[in-house]
Structures are given as C-alpha cells and as structure tokens.
C-alpha cells in the first residue's frame, strides 16, 4: 500500500498504521506519541498528540477524513495522503493537546526525577507555549507506593493507560487500574493491594512521564550524569537483555532497552531490574544508542564533535561572534 506523509511516499503492508508508516519514513515526518507503545496491543488513541490530517482517504475514495485522526490507531489505505508537520491546523491542534496535558501537570521539571527522559517535557518543548493560560488550582494527589519498589506520583500522570496494558498483557492478575472518571480519574491499586509480580517493574519503563518511578533509583542521580550501557546476563525469567545505567563503577539502575522512539524493546523481569546492581553481574555490550537531541547525550562523547559543529553553524547563521577565533 502506498501512503504519502508530508509529501514523502512509502510502500507498506496492509494493516500498518499511519504512525508506523511515518516512523518507517523517519523522524522528520513521524508524529509525537505519548500513549502508543509498539509492544503493547490496543495501546494508543488516548493522548491525541499523534493526530494527523488525512487529506485523501485512499485512491478508491479520495475524500479527506472529516476530522483529524489518531495516527497510531488508524490503518493506512492504498493511496492515502497524510499531512502532519505540513498542516498548520494539525500543529495548532497538537499545541492544544499539549496545553491540555499540561494544565493539571505540575510545571516543576527541575525537581522531577523523570527530567531528562520525560516524553512530556520533550513534547512541551517542541509543541507547547512558553506560558500557561490555566489559572486554576491543579489536581493534587498524595505520592504513594503502589509496589514494593514503585512510586506513584499521580499529579504527573497523563493517563496514557500504558501501565494498565502492561499489567493486562504481560502479567497475571492485574492489581492496578484506572479508577473514577473524567478529570478525577487516577491510577490506583485496589484498596490496600500492591502490584507484585515478576514483571511489575515494567510499568516504570512504559510510563512516559514521572508518574511511576523506580524507588531504588529515585533521586539518586540526575539521569544525564549517568551513562547508559546495553548489557545482558543469563536470566531464567526474561531475555536478560537490559540497559544498565552507570555512574563510574556503580550500577544505579537497570531498565529495559528502549528503541529510537523511547519504547521498550523487550520487557525485563524484576530480578534483572532490582537484584543485579553490581557491574560484574552484567556482560556489557557497549554504550546505548542515545538520541543526539536528548540531554542524556551530553555524557555520550561520540556525539560531541558533531554537536559542536552544529552549534557553530547555528551561531554563524545568527551572526554570533566566533568565540574560538582569536581577535
């Protein structure tokens, strides 16, 4: 099936969604996504950040779709023409979505443990406004433990449902879910229960914001001062392929490996995640690939030269003085 996204054409198999097709083309056309997760069935559709305009439904039915559609949940049709970054109305709609996601979200990134690896932070930076128009009190919840090693900071939750889908799809007997409704909705365990199973820690990895965090790592270190490496170990419960976050010789935390879209490649067990915090527990494969634009890459020296060249180019273009040149 041929589909055109922002003027770029690609052939994809039937059943591919617009978002998947866009990701195949590349970052320049791929819409941002907060609630979609490629390893979780029926994920997506909730956050509405990946809305795109379908300017032509298909070759057979060239009519445009009347409303923007969630690209993560809409399958392509042969001859479909999609507008994402090229559509001013989509950019405006996305700006609206970002604003909605932020009106009840604390604007305190400097004290949030997710800072530096937060999808909402990136999204707000790229699509949001500089100031908020929301003048009312934000929703507030207590910070609670919902598992022995999992902290829930509900104020930060954007209700992406990813953690609920992890519990449904990779663990037995889901113990947490979404309760209440509307803007009172919250992630909660059943009264007095906790999430406890071998794969429960994955809810942390799929959380796009700082709502679910790893208690064993919380506030130990800013993520950009750590060095992520891909490593593996023999594990009977999972593949043992993980990302190990180092500070010197110390293992500060273990997570699943994320792909270039920040989505877990494979889920890991709690044994790997919590119980193997010595460097010798792991066979280190090498530095993890980190997006050049991520703040984490400041510790990833392979990008540094490239970055310097870029910055100099930009400064030149803006008429900055070349600080490296001697007067």
């Amino acid at each position, binding site marked *: 099936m041929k589909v055109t996204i922002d003027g770029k054409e690609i052939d994809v198999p039937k059943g591919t969604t617009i978002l998947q097709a866009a990701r195949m083309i590349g970052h320049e056309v791929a819409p941002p996504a907060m609630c979609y997760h490629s390893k979780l069935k029926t994920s997506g559709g909730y956050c509405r950040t990946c809305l795109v305009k379908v300017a032509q439904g298909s070759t057979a039915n060239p009519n445009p779709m009347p409303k923007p559609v969630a690209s993560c949940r809409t399958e392509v049709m042969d001859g479909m023409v999609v507008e994402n970054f090229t559509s001013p109305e989509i950019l405006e709609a996305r700006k609206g979505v970002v604003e909605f996601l932020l009106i009840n979200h604390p604007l305190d990134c400097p004290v949030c443990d997710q800072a530096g690896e937060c999808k909402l932070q990136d999204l707000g930076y790229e699509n949001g406004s500089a100031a908020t128009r929301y003048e009312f009190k934000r929703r507030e919840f*207590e*910070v*609670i*433990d919902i*598992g*022995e090693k999992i902290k829930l900071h509900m104020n930060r939750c954007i209700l992406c449902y990813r953690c609920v889908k992890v519990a449904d799809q990779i663990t037995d*007997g*889901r*113990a*947490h*879910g*979404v*309760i*209440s*409704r509307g803007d009172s909705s919250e992630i*909660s*365990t*059943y*009264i*007095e*229960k*906790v999430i*406890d199973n071998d794969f429960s820690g994955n809810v942390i990895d799929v959380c796009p914001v700082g709502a679910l965090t790893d208690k064993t790592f919380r506030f130990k270190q800013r993520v950009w001062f750590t060095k992520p490496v891909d490593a593996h170990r023999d594990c009977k419960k999972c593949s043992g392929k993980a990302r190990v976050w180092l500070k010197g010789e110390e293992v500060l935390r273990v997570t699943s490996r994320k792909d270039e879209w920040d989505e877990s490649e494979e889920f890991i067990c709690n044994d790997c995640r919590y119980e193997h915090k010595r460097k010798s527990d792991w066979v280190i494969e090498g530095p993890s690939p980190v997006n050049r634009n991520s703040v984490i890459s400041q510790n990833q020296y392979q990008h540094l030269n490239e970055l310097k060249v870029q910055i100099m180019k930009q400064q030149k273009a803006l008429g900055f003085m070349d600080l490296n040149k001697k007067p």
Partner: protein
Amino acid sequence: MGSEVQGTQTFDKAKRAGLKFSEEAMTTVQTIISHYPDDKRKSALIPVLHIAQAEFGGWLSAETMDYVASIIKIQPIEVFEVASFYSMFHLHPVGKCVFEVCQTSSCWLMGGEDIVKYIGKKLNLKVGETTADGLFTLKVAECLGSCGTAPMLQCGASYHEKLTYEKIDKLIESYRAEGKQKNYTDLDYKNTL
C-alpha cells in the same frame, strides 16, 4: 491508602466480614448472570453491584466489592474500576434516603437550585453531607430525564417531580416516618407523593 506497603497477601475481607447475599437476592443474581453467555459473566457486574449496594447498607465497601468479585469471578480491581466510574455507586457510607436533586438546564430553569437550597436549609446540610441521624444525604445530580416535570429529585427508585417547597416538606416527613433505606432496586417505589 497510606504510603506504607501493606504486603502481598491476598485480602479476603469479604470472607472475614461474612458477607452473603440473602437467598432471594442470590436468586436474582443468578438470573442476571444467566442473561449472558457463560464466558461473559463480567457483563453481570453492574446489575449485581446494584443489588449488592442495596443489600449491604446502601454503599459499596471494599468487603462488598471483594464479595462481588468472587461471585462474578473477576479481579477485585475490575470491580473497583467500574464501581468508581458510575455515579450511582456510592463508595462511602450514605444516609438511608439519598436525595439526588437534578441541576442541569431544564431543572435549573425551573428552580432546581432553590430546591437544593431549601432541602439544605431544612435539613441543615451542605451538598454531599448526611444528617446526624443517618437518615438523609443531599446530593446534586446531572440530568435525570425528567426535564418536562422539572424541578425534580430522585430518591432510590422513585422520581419526585414538579417539586415545590410543600412537596419537599411532605416528602421528608413521610420518609422520616418510614425510616427505611431507599434503593434503586426497590420494588415498592412511588413516583408521586
């Protein structure tokens, strides 16, 4: 819910609390379950929660939800998710008679706000509160489909429509005399005063 982790054992408070449907209620529950395919028992959840709420004190405690989960054979969290979504399920104790006064457009146009104020003054209640004797709770509700007979309130299964202050006086008097818990499932509902 405190910040202390409570451990990992399965709570089975329902068993400890000895909750059990009456024989009559159990028959109704079984009939309801029979309305759905065998592997779709979960469909019976909402109707069964109504019966549970009526049977066990007019609200859904954790014990009640546990018990319903065991009957429907689902996880307790699934019950909690549903019970907390729908406005007719009370997750905290309420009075025997819950006055739900409609406040949406048509009822507002016809004086619904005055009804709330009047009941509040008469029973010395704020919205959401229950009288000290545990008899009356005052709540506001969104459109209950009684727009042509506004203003109105619902109490249990009964719709009380075209309300006036006099009607409210009589209503409170008669409910006080009865002193009975009013449920949505009641068969002896009266839709007029």
